């Protein structure tokens, strides 16, 4: 690189009026790309965070979500006495038979209704999920129409604060406590007693069972035992793997993010090309002069490509800064983001999660737009006939 970088930087600054539109365009592309990918990352993180490595999740074979699964009481009877299941101090097996139901609840401020995952848990249910902490009020009393709501859901749905009463299944449920799901999928749930839930929603069976294993070897043995028993048409997965699989919705965000970024980048690419063509046009005599002074064609070519990359790179940095600022703002103001899960068809809440990797991807994306956009103008600049270029007024 024989021409100093300051030559390109100053040219970008001097022509700020014509370069501003391109910088803003690229900044928007990068911000949209990073933000949508960060939503996907946030959603994926909530799925990846969920579960305990010692736990196994049991659902009906062929079911795609707990809400469409059934585990009957006879199956539970068979399962709960298997020796691989860990036991508490009183010798009781660490197993929670859960009922998962989707209920429609009104959002706060009259913003319509949305599906919410209501989980009925057995007495051991909370103990099996150490990531969940009660932060306000108390746990529900088995046998009573009481519920405990995640703090994030309580911010989004009406009458779900402690003391609030909401109606579902034709009956009223009183909220007695709030829990923090620790950035897991449980942040998108309302919990109550499993048997009370079966009665409320008139269900004969449970949806799933969560069991704690005594050891990883016992877990392998347990899986083998259940899968070889033809009387038990059940599927067993590690709890973490199960929830990870449940956040496939994040893939859709990634695809949408990529699609939006690619379509917007086509616009940004033409903006960069236009700016660089204008720049070449305005600097024709300058290019001729550089050639006369001895600068070779490839130096001119490289210089204009570098200039395009700097131009788009500035846009990329601004785009990153905007997305980081939005993330900080969302944390400061406690913004939550919700979407419908395509596995459970219920609302899931999550937060932005801009990773350094995403920021680097955004910057690379920006520089690529600049390089590709400036390629043709740069070729044109390098091929200008010297004498004709010198004569341009």
């Amino acid at each position, binding site marked *: 690189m*024989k021409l100093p970088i300051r*030559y390109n930087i*100053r*040219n970008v600054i001097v022509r700020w009026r014509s370069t501003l539109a391109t910088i803003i365009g690229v900044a928007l592309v990068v911000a949209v790309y990073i933000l949508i990918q960060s939503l996907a990352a946030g959603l994926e993180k909530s799925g990846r965070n969920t579960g305990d490595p010692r736990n196994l999740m049991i659902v009906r074979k062929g079911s795609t979500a707990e809400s469409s699964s059934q585990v009957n009481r006879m199956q539970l009877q068979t399962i709960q006495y298997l020796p691989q299941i860990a036991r508490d101090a009183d010798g009781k097996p660490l197993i929670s038979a859960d009922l998962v139901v989707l209920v429609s609840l009104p959002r706060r401020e009259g913003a319509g209704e949305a599906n919410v995952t209501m989980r009925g848990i057995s007495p051991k249910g909370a103990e099996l999920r150490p990531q969940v902490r009660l932060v306000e009020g108390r746990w529900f009393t088995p046998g009573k129409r009481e519920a405990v709501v995640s703090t994030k859901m309580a911010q989004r749905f009406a009458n779900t604060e402690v003391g609030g009463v909401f109606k579902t299944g034709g009956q009223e449920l009183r909220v007695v406590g709030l829990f923090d799901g620790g950035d897991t999928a449980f942040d998108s749930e309302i919990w109550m007693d499993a048997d009370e839930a079966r009665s409320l929603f008139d269900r004969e069976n449970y949806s799933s069972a969560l069991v704690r294993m005594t050891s990883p070897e016992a877990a392998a043995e347990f899986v083998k035992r259940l899968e070889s028993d033809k009387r038990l048409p059940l599927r067993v997965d590690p709890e973490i793997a199960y929830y990870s699989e449940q956040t496939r919705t994040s893939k859709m965000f990634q695809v949408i993010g990529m699609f939006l970024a690619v379509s917007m980048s086509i616009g940004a690419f033409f903006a960069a090309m236009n700016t660089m063509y204008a720049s070449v046009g305005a600097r024709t005599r*300058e290019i001729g*002069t550089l050639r006369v002074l*001895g600068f070779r*064609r490839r130096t001119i070519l490289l210089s204009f490509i570098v200039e395009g990359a700097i131009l788009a790179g500035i846009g990329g940095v601004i785009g990153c800064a905007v997305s980081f600022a939005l993330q900080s703002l969302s944390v400061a103001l406690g913004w939550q983001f919700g979407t419908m899960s395509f596995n459970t068809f219920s609302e899931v809440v999550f937060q932005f999660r801009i990773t350094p990797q995403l920021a680097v991807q955004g910057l690379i994306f920006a520089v690529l737009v600049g390089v590709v956009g400036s390629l043709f103008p740069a070729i044109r600049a390098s091929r200008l006939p010297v*004498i004709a270029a010198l004569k341009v007024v």
Partner: protein
Amino acid sequence: MPEPETIVAIRNLSKVYSQGEIQVTALNNISLDIARGEFLTLMGPSGSGKSTLLHIIAGIDRPTSGECRVQGVNVTQLNESELADWRNQNVGFVFQTFNLIPVLTAFENVELPLLLTKLSRKQRQQLVSTALEIVGLADRSHHLPRQLSGGQEQRVAIARALVTDPSLVVADEPTGNLDSHSAQEVLTVLQSLSRTANKTVIMVTHDPKAAAYGSRSIHLEKGELSN
């Protein structure tokens, strides 16, 4: 007295431009020798071929036929890249419109040709400072072109032309855009380059007053030498 060394030797040089089916002869069978240290002025009406001749001598245009040797090198036979290197090492250019890079300071503009050499930063700084001192603009080195007068801009351009210590300085109407005072300053600098630094200066001009600064003047008429 010893015979002055010939630095430019032109033999049977012709340049014909094709514009569709019409052929325009810009230079017709020119032969010319220019000695080291000479301040040659090329005069003639518009379209007489004086700028074309200057461009061929400086290696930014090619003749249709004939030969142009500068310090023994037949510049007409060099390829694009060789010509670029050759220009950088052997020719200094001064344009009518100064052609300074607007975003670079006077110092940076003068430094440009040196960026193509292997000189260290310190060596470059020294050479640039010397060149700016020669043209009397050492105190304006950090000014941008727009902060300089026309005459000062042209003197920066002269500093840029001589910073690589070329044997040949070519100037195409260097006073065309200057008031008479600035023109006089610029012509004095060019004259001193030829007289004191023994540089060969070739200048295209319309102005007989400017031509008077030269040591020899030749006239072109319809692509041919008229005297």
